[in-house]
């Protein structure tokens, strides 16, 4: 019997032969990713090419010259100065500023309301606890649009008008808006006055803005309350008991022990709610508040530049939401546990 050739065990103990590249574990993932990436790029190229081809066929190739045309319509409630002779891009900018204004104020309001209600659901007071539950369940189960219409048509538009308006020192609440005293011309203190049947004052909030704010704050507040409740519930019960054994009150426990720890759970959830709020603000059109969406709709109709206007809208809301997200992620890093 011939001896086993010694070459075999020798070669087995040496480094195994390199497999062909299509079986190489280090190469395969790269190949797969390259193929998928190429397919995605091809798809995008196809869609874009198709878009350009169809737009050209329809005589609607992307053009941005309309941005410089005079808008021709007025905006009554603009923070930045605007009139009908200014170009469309100024109108869109005025709309964007109005959107940002509504989003910022609603963010603050909804956070305060949501935090209070979220805390209230841990209160020792049974009535308060139940009220908080009822608020959350009622509000988050009704579509926001219906709520906005309710606030505008049923609550704000049934306010009295003109001389019959609700008048407090320095403040008047009328059907047309909230009028607040402030510094007028020549730095004199000016209160709300009725001129020719129309209230005038240095500071004015329209009922349209009011209805939008109320709707957004109440609606988002309910969701934020749930996020806060979840965050508080995530703090171990032992923390409450330990605080209580130290003689801390309910409120002090919440403020000094529980809330700081619960922020780690709350902040990521809050991020989602803030982003939703920013997007929901586009429902302003339903209550006559001139926001970005409303201006864009008129622009689209007057210029016929549907694709361009929608691209502007998409870019604006995307940027707004990414900004909010970036800020919240920064906040999140601040409140996370840091190993010392």
């Amino acid at each position, binding site marked *: 019997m011939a001896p086993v050739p010694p070459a075999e065990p020798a070669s087995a103990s040496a480094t195994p032969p390199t497999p062909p590249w299509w079986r190489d574990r280090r190469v395969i993932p790269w190949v797969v990713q390259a193929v998928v990436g190429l397919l995605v790029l091809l798809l995008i190229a196809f869609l874009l090419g198709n878009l350009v081809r169809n737009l050209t066929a329809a*005589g609607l190739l992307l053009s941005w010259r309309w941005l410089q045309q005079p808008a021709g*319509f007025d905006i009554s409630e603009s923070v930045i100065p605007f009139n009908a002779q200014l170009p469309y891009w100024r109108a869109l900018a005025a709309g964007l500023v109005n959107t940002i204004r509504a989003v910022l104020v609603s963010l603050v309001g909804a956070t305060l309301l949501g935090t209070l209600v979220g805390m209230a659901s841990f209160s020792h007071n049974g009535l308060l606890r139940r009220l908080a539950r009822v608020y959350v369940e009622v509000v988050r189960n009704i579509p926001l649009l219906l709520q906005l219409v309710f606030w505008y048509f049923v609550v704000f538009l049934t306010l009295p008008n003109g001389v019959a308006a609700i008048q407090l020192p320095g403040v008047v609440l009328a059907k047309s808006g909230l009028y607040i005293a402030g510094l007028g011309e020549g730095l004199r203190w000016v209160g709300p006055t009725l*001129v020719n*049947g*129309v209230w005038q004052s240095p500071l004015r909030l329209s009922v349209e803005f009011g209805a939008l704010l109320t709707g957004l704050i109440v609606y988002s507040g309910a969701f934020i309350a749930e996020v806060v409740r979840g965050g508080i519930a995530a703090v171990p019960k032992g923390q409450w008991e330990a605080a209580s054994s130290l003689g801390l009150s309910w409120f002090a426990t919440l403020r000094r022990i529980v809330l700081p720890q619960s922020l780690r759970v709350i902040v990521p959830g809050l991020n989602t709610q803030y982003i939703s709020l920013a997007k929901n603000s586009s429902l302003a*059109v339903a209550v006559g508040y001139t926001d970005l969406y409303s201006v864009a*709709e008129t622009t689209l109709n007057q210029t016929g530049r549907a694709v361009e206007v929608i691209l502007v809208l998409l870019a604006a809301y995307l940027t707004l939401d990414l900004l909010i997200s970036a800020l919240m992620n920064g906040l999140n890093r601040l409140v996370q546990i840091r190993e010392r």
Partner: protein
Amino acid sequence: MSSAALTHPARVLSTTALLLTALVALLGCAAGGGAPGSPTMARIRERGRLVCAVDGAVPGFSTVGPQGAFVGIDADFCRAVAAAVLGDARKVEFRPVTAGERFVALSSGEVDLLSISSTHTLGRDAPGGNALSFGPVFFYDGQGVMVPAASGIRSLRDLAGKPICVESGTNTELNLADRMRERGVAYQPLRFQSGEQAYPAYEQGRCAAITSDSSLLAGKRSGFRNPADHVLLSELLSKEPSAKVTIQADPAWADAVRWITYTLIQAEESGLTQANVEASRAAARADASQAERRRFLGVEGDFGRQLGLPADFTLRVVKAVGNYGELFERHLGQSTPLGLDRGLNRLWNRGGLHIAPPFR
């Protein structure tokens, strides 16, 4: 809560959906085939019904009637087109759209035809603008202003500093800005996405005035709780000749819609009514001397075929909805709650502006 206000969540959603559809349609579909004739008409025949955009909430023009069917002069125009193209006036799918979304709905192919008060303007017509195709003027109108009778407002100047309700995305909005600028009158425009928000807001007293086409104001007023409490100012802000709209990319379809409109006008001029048109055609068929009537009703010649319509399309149109005068009296005239005078909407030989070119 007003019931009108309740219906609009669907509207806001539909606007968004339409805008997205437009985008997706442009992004996704391959270019439409260049079949001879009219692609729109081919699509309507294949589908078996006409998709016709109406406002849906303007009394006299298009509203949902007590039986759940759309009624009004705009709705009947859709029926006339369906009768001409498909031979059945009932084969219409009505699609209520807002002022802001109507042109996108049309250019994206969501609807075949706009039967909404749409003023013919250069920017909407031009290939470099909205690239739409307007039919003959269907209704001569002017922009008016409605105020509460008790307010004491009698002219635009009286509206200085006051809130004025207006539908956004309309000509109305631009005319208002122009007229107020000319007069140097400051005002607060309250821009609403649709009439379903603007009119309830006005009725609840949020605005000192509301502005739109006079006929629309009269129509909306007829639906108010107390129509007599509201008056139209005598000042008109603009001329608003409104027409039926199709896309510019399908000129054959635009021609068909144009001549269906002329059919209604010519029928009135020729004394053909819903009641007598069939008998008149039979009489014309027997009498070779009635040359003009024979051509109009498709007894001689092939005008229908030239338009891509049946030879007797004029007969079908008039039988389905009557002539222009009948339509006007039925929906807008003195016997209706709107009680509009025909005014400029009379025929050319009665002191009005409606004229149909010769059917020859």
